[in-house]
């Protein structure tokens, strides 16, 4: 982009947020372009539902716009704050889903030509993973998602979840064990016997 008021791509998110709060109209567009892909990706990997992930993304960024005037630079990173808000919004939805959708309700792999079938199988496995994630307690689901779906390190997750790194390790270990147990019952159905 070559807009005269475009912010440098290296500008910290917090500086853009402060610029937005001070009335810079370009700052919101720049910030949205920088942050939306990450938030949407995180939401989609946890929820496996495009519409829900978009709703969560819009809500997370709306909350960011609202707190912009009170944002104090240097106290927290915008991305850390967004990871936390997005994770909380996703676990809220997963909790609702847990109450309404049985695990068996997840679509099974469909028959078809080989590449299509493989894609469908991949998708089914990922859907099953998301459904299994929804069965975990909220904090376990968040820790597992941040560690294994977002690929974050334990210290960063500790900061996002406001807990110790030991607690993160414990949550992710227990979460993984629980996921393994939940998914074990669906191995054949998800095509693992054929691998």
């Amino acid at each position: 982009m070559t807009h005269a008021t475009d912010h440098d791509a290296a500008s910290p998110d917090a500086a853009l947020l402060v610029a937005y709060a001070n009335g810079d109209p370009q700052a919101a567009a720049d910030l949205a372009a920088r942050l939306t892909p990450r938030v949407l990706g995180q939401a989609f990997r946890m929820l496996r539902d495009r519409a829900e992930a978009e709703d969560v993304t819009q809500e997370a960024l709306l909350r960011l716009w609202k707190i912009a005037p009170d944002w104090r630079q240097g106290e927290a990173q915008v991305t850390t704050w967004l990871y936390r808000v997005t994770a909380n919004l996703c676990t809220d939805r997963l909790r609702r889903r847990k109450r309404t959708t049985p695990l068996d309700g997840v679509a099974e792999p469909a028959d078809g030509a080989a590449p299509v079938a493989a894609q469908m199988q991949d998708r089914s496995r990922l859907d099953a993973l998301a459904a299994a994630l929804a069965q975990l307690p909220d904090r376990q689901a968040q820790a597992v998602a941040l560690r294994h779906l977002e690929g974050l390190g334990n210290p960063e997750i500790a900061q996002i979840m406001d807990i110790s790194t030991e607690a993160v390790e414990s949550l992710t270990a227990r979460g993984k064990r629980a996921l393994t147990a939940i998914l074990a019952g669906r191995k054949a159905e998800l095509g693992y016997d054929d691998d």
Partner: protein
Amino acid sequence: MTMTERELDDLFASARAEHVAVSDALLARIVADADAVVAARAVTMRTAPGFWATLRTCVGGWPGLGGMVAATLAGVWIGFAPPNAVAPLAASVWGETSTISLFSSDDVLGIEG
């Protein structure tokens, strides 16, 4: 039959590898939200009453404030230049006023003892 940790890790890796494209429509909604929040904040700031506006409201608007100012001015005026009728009235309410001097008028500094 249990799922191995390796299979679960592979599943996580597949999930991480998935690209989720952002639609223009979503970006437009997000930027529209940002604009709406700014506009709402501007309206709130414009309509938030200041100190004097709040005071004026408390005393009943302009008529109330005008009455308060008139009463204050009248009080000050009466204090400086009381009308003839006020002095006897004040005397009957508060009693006669008398002045006591602790010093002789000739000896203000008390030098003569």
